């Protein structure tokens, strides 16, 4: 039964929009899927102790490069997105390489990435003549409404399927990493970098690989968001708030579990919508307020996140070999 379940669930998810076609719920689902993908991208490196507080920067790069390429150079997103991914990868290398090479880890690394996302925000603001600065930026609408070449679609169903596909891609990548040698190398590094190096692991190279992967995936999320919403602004796609939000969602959902970030996305987005509906414009800031408190509470009491803790509970219920307890 458990083997068939994922396929059934998958089929249900794919078939959903054809059965239930209401635009608003579909919109929420698309947003959830895109952000789930973004959060999953973060946790691809976050689970190995490489806590980046700057992924907002990569998402911003993804969104803005795609939009700018389309508006200024008429470049189809089919070219613009790869361009954005390359830019994100380059940025990741430029920042992460010196960090890893010179053993800047833990606190230091987190702070550098935090500064990174702040700087990306500054760049977007500084180039306001081209990017619209804090007022936001709009990729031009294609005249027909829907176009494969412009990667703009009027139909929510189409976007839902695209988002679902990308989300599935994210999970697939997560699983591939989970089963790869890279994972063991990174876990060894996370535990004791010097020992891993002594055992022949190319610490800098491995860390760089996962960082670039994570950055590129996040940038893709940014590009997708841009194409879907057709409006981006520095605070919605980049900056410290977005970066922290990513971490928050992944932590709440569960970093070490594939579906954890998705659970986190569901929680954060549903929460935001509920607050928006209940409070209207007065809700500005309330959602982050709740995130902030919840993040602190979760870190203190449930560091493995909701899904992680639930899974832990399941594991404990199954009979395990009694642990040897030395004489106390």
């Amino acid at each position, binding site marked *: 039964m458990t083997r068939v379940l994922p396929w059934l669930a998958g089929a249900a998810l794919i078939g959903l929009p054809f059965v239930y076609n209401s635009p608003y719920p579909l919109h929420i689902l698309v947003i959830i899927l895109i952000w789930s993908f973004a959060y999953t991208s973060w946790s691809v490196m976050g689970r190995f102790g490489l806590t980046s507080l700057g992924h907002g920067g990569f998402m911003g790069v993804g969104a803005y490069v795609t939009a700018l390429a389309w508006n200024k150079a008429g470049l189809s997103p089919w070219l613009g997105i790869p361009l954005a991914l390359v830019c994100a990868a380059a940025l990741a290398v430029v920042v992460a390489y010196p960090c890893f090479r010179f053993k800047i880890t833990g606190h230091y690394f987190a702070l550098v990435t935090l500064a990174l996302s702040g700087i990306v925000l500054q760049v977007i603001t500084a180039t306001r003549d081209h990017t619209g600065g804090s007022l936001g930026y709009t990729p031009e609408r294609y005249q027909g409404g829907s176009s494969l070449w412009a990667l703009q679609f009027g139909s929510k169903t189409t976007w839902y399927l695209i988002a679902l596909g990308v989300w599935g891609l994210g999970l697939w990548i997560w699983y591939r990493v989970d089963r790869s040698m890279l994972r063991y190398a990174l876990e060894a590094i996370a535990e004791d970098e010097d020992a891993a190096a002594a055992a022949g692991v190319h610490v800098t190279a491995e860390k760089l690989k996962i960082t670039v992967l994570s950055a590129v995936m996040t940038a893709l999320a940014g590009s997708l968001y841009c194409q879907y919403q057709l409006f981006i602004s520095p605070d919605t796609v980049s900056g410290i708030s977005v970066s922290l*939000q990513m971490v928050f969602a992944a932590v709440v959902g569960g970093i070490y579990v594939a579906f954890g970030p998705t659970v986190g996305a569901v929680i954060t987005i549903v929460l935001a919508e509920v607050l928006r509906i209940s409070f209207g414009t007065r809700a500005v800031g309330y959602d982050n307020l709740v995130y902030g408190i919840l993040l602190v509470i979760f870190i203190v009491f449930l560091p493995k996140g909701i899904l992680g803790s639930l899974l832990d509970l399941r594991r404990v219920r199954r009979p395990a070999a009694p642990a040897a307890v030395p004489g106390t």
Partner: protein
Amino acid sequence: MGIFDIYLLEALINGVLLGGVLALLSLGLNLIFGVIDVVWICYAELIMLGMYSMYFLYSVYHLPLVAAAVVCIIGVAVLGVLLHVLVIAPLLGAAPINQLLATGGVLFFLQSAATVMFGVEFKNLGMRLPVLKLSGMFISYSRLLAFAFALVGMVLVYLFLTRTYTGTAIRAISQDRQIMVLMGVDSRRIYLITSALGGGLAGLAACLLVLQYDIHPFVGLSFGPITFLICVLGSLGNFGGGFVAAFVFAEIISLGGLYSDLEWGYVLAFAFFIVMMFIRPQGLMTRRS
């Protein structure tokens, strides 16, 4: 070329003045990290709250400036202690990343609380301090004042750290935490005192910054990341390193701002940081994870 020289000199001087305040900020952050081994990611947000309190105390309730400053400093010191007791202390044994994330949560919380309580419009103290004209250069009086008081603050902290038992204990605990009990030092008390000190410095910084800049919930983003970069480059916990790095960064920002928008100054500073990591990884930095 004569005109450029004046502007350059002015930018250099303004850089020094800015450096003083940034040095004060990095001192606070370094203190907390050196003693408690935690980074307050929300440090800039504490300052933001301090700035709001100055606004309310001075512009709304019309307290004299000095009184408002004193209340502000004490208030943010109390906030620092609260932060430690409510968020940091429960997590002292947890993974460092969790501690970071928790203070990140507080950052979120403080920014949003400010947004909800005060709105996003820019506020200002409304003080018009004179601008001094020195041989063709315009130096703002508020900047000079900020610099002067930042120096005073740092000297006071220096004296506290070197001349008092508690201050010496604070320096000692950052070198060897475990044996502090052997000398009768209650670590928890030291943490509380350090948190109060860190908060107090943030409060002082708020008083100085509010003279020059507008207040809004996200003002912390303007100098928070830079402060982190300064501390990392100067090596977290290294007061001397942070002091030097602060002035270096301030000059870069100031000079960058001379030739273009202020934001490019920040970008330049970050690029400088990246370059420094390549050029002098041993230089100001020790490797600590």
